[in-house]
């Protein structure tokens, strides 16, 4: 969103039309050819998008969340459209880590892109087992831990809402998968997400990715029932962008980890705003549903914007948001 205001202080000259913009970014130990990564659960296992884009044109993609055994997920309805967003309660359906390694990974060979495996479990042991299994797997470049999963040993409360639990799970996974960059994906359903990020760092995480979906609900007035068979689901899409942006800003200032930001990104401007707020890279989720070419469109848009604005290295944008004097620390209230 842009507001009629005085233009930026040092407005730079545009780059020459053919000048190359360096789109590559480093996120902790992770190197990406550009900052745009397709988000878990919205990009299948990658090959589904081959009709619409070259995987090599993306910075990378994250697989659907993987568990030890295959999971069939929840009964329908699993999704529901809301105002500028959608709810989902898929129930973490996936082929399981073995089938992923045996059937999905080979199909990705030759596609020059970064493959990030999204990992979850219902118990700490399952997290560890899945991570250990992936640690060896050729073609997996990083792990992303989904901490929004309900902890069956703690009465279904999500792992990610308790800093001590975060520290424990991340630490255990870190030891189980020492060779891979470790991304910890934070849940936004928490009072202070920066505290969760610090717990992840203490557990040994290399990178924080945020945000996962917000807990939400939809009701069918005609039947007087919840729309989702699971009653509640996760909200994603443009509706949550302002919330995600505030959390990225906060974690950037007080979380102490490099950030992969996401939440409602649907165009290059959104992605660039997340970078100004402190993201080193971004993920694109729901947008893949209403525009299967969203990822590449955003990469191209970022490059065009950088050229226009005279930005020669996109990585230089991270955290360069200009704050009003005396507005250093992110306020916690409106």
């Amino acid at each position, binding site marked *: 969103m842009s507001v009629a205001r005085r233009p930026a202080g040092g407005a730079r000259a545009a780059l020459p039309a053919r000048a190359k913009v360096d789109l590559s970014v480093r996120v902790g130990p992770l190197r990406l050819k550009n900052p745009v990564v397709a988000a878990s*659960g*919205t*990009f*299948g296992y990658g090959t*589904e*998008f081959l*009709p*619409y884009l070259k995987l090599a044109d993306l910075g990378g993609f994250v697989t*659907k969340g993987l568990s030890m055994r295959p999971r*069939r*997920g929840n*009964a*329908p*309805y*699993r*999704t*529901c*459209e809301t*105002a*500028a*967003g*959608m709810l*989902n309660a*898929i129930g973490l*359906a996936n082929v399981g880590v073995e089938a992923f390694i045996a059937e999905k990974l080979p199909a990705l060979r030759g596609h020059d892109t970064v493959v990030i495996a999204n990992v979850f479990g219902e118990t700490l042991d399952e997290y560890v087992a899945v991570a250990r299994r992936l640690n060896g797997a050729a073609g997996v470049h990083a792990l992303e831990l989904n901490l929004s999963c309900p902890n069956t040993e703690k009465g279904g409360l999500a792992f990610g809402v308790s800093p001590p639990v975060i520290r424990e799970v991340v630490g255990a996974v870190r030891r189980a998968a020492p060779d891979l960059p470790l991304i910890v994906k934070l849940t936004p359903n928490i009072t202070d997400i920066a505290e969760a990020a610090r717990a992840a760092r203490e557990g040994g995480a290399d990178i924080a990715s945020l945000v996962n979906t917000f807990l939400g609900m939809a009701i069918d007035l005609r039947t007087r029932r919840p729309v989702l068979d699971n009653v509640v689901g996760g909200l994603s*899409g*443009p*509706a949550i962008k302002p919330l995600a942006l505030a959390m990225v800003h906060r974690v950037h200032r007080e979380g102490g980890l490099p950030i992969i930001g996401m939440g409602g990104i*649907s165009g290059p401007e959104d992605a660039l705003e997340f970078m100004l707020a402190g993201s080193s890279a971004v993920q694109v989720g*729901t947008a*893949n*549903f*209403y*525009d*299967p*070419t969203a990822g590449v469109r955003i990469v191209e848009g970022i490059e065009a914007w950088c050229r226009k604005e005279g930005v020669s290295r996109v990585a230089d944008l991270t955290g360069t948001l200009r704050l009003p004097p005396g507005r250093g620390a992110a306020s916690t209230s409106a």
Partner: protein
Amino acid sequence: MPVDLPAPIVRHERLNPEHFLLTLEAPAIARVAKPGQFVMLQTRDGFDPLLRRPMSVARVLPGRRRIEILYKVVGRGTRYLSAQPAGACLRTLGPLGNGFRPPAKGRRPVLVAGGVGIAIFPFLADDLRRRRLRPRLLFGARRKADLVGLEFFRSRRVPIAVATEDGSAGTHGFVTRLLEPLTRPGAEPAELYVCGPTPMLRAVGALAVQAGIHCQLALESPMPCGIGVCLGCVVACTPDAQGPIYRRVCTEGPVFDAGAVVL
């Protein structure tokens, strides 16, 4: 392979207060589409509604450059869509889904439509006639006004039987009443192609399974992506030892054998 393209609206005709016929210029889709497949259609710019809407390819026009979509206004997306003028461009992704299978040898194709479910059949009817198979149409709707597209089938001499819930046209009652003759001993062996609201699919499917008639159901489900990645559109299929099996209506369907799904 499906493609995503901006499709200009060539024609947008209001058939009656609730039903519209949309003609899109979409060569890359028209060339490869098969009966029973669908597209994911943008209804208007911006984030409201956020998601595209699944719409059957009602017809591929001669020359295979244009497709027709027949739709009913039921909510926000279709209401906004109905306001799109000719000339406007709508992102259109397709063709998607498995489509119908040809009838088994020696079986007479019988198209069973409920309400706007009729939208999926013009394409199939033309295709069957090209193969010299003589489709029949059984069309059930709430009231006479909902019987849209009949002219199309009449002009092609497709035998038509009609049922309305309020009795304002044809047999009084549900479309299932029109199926009874097919279940009688000695009736001509049929292959049912069924599209309509879920309760109707449930009823027709049950009847067909019971009578041992081949029956292909074209299912509906809310579809965020249409390409098999969100896992949101699943339908419950016959369970195994580990419990229910879920299949994606968008990529493993929308056409399923009546015996395979639990509606």
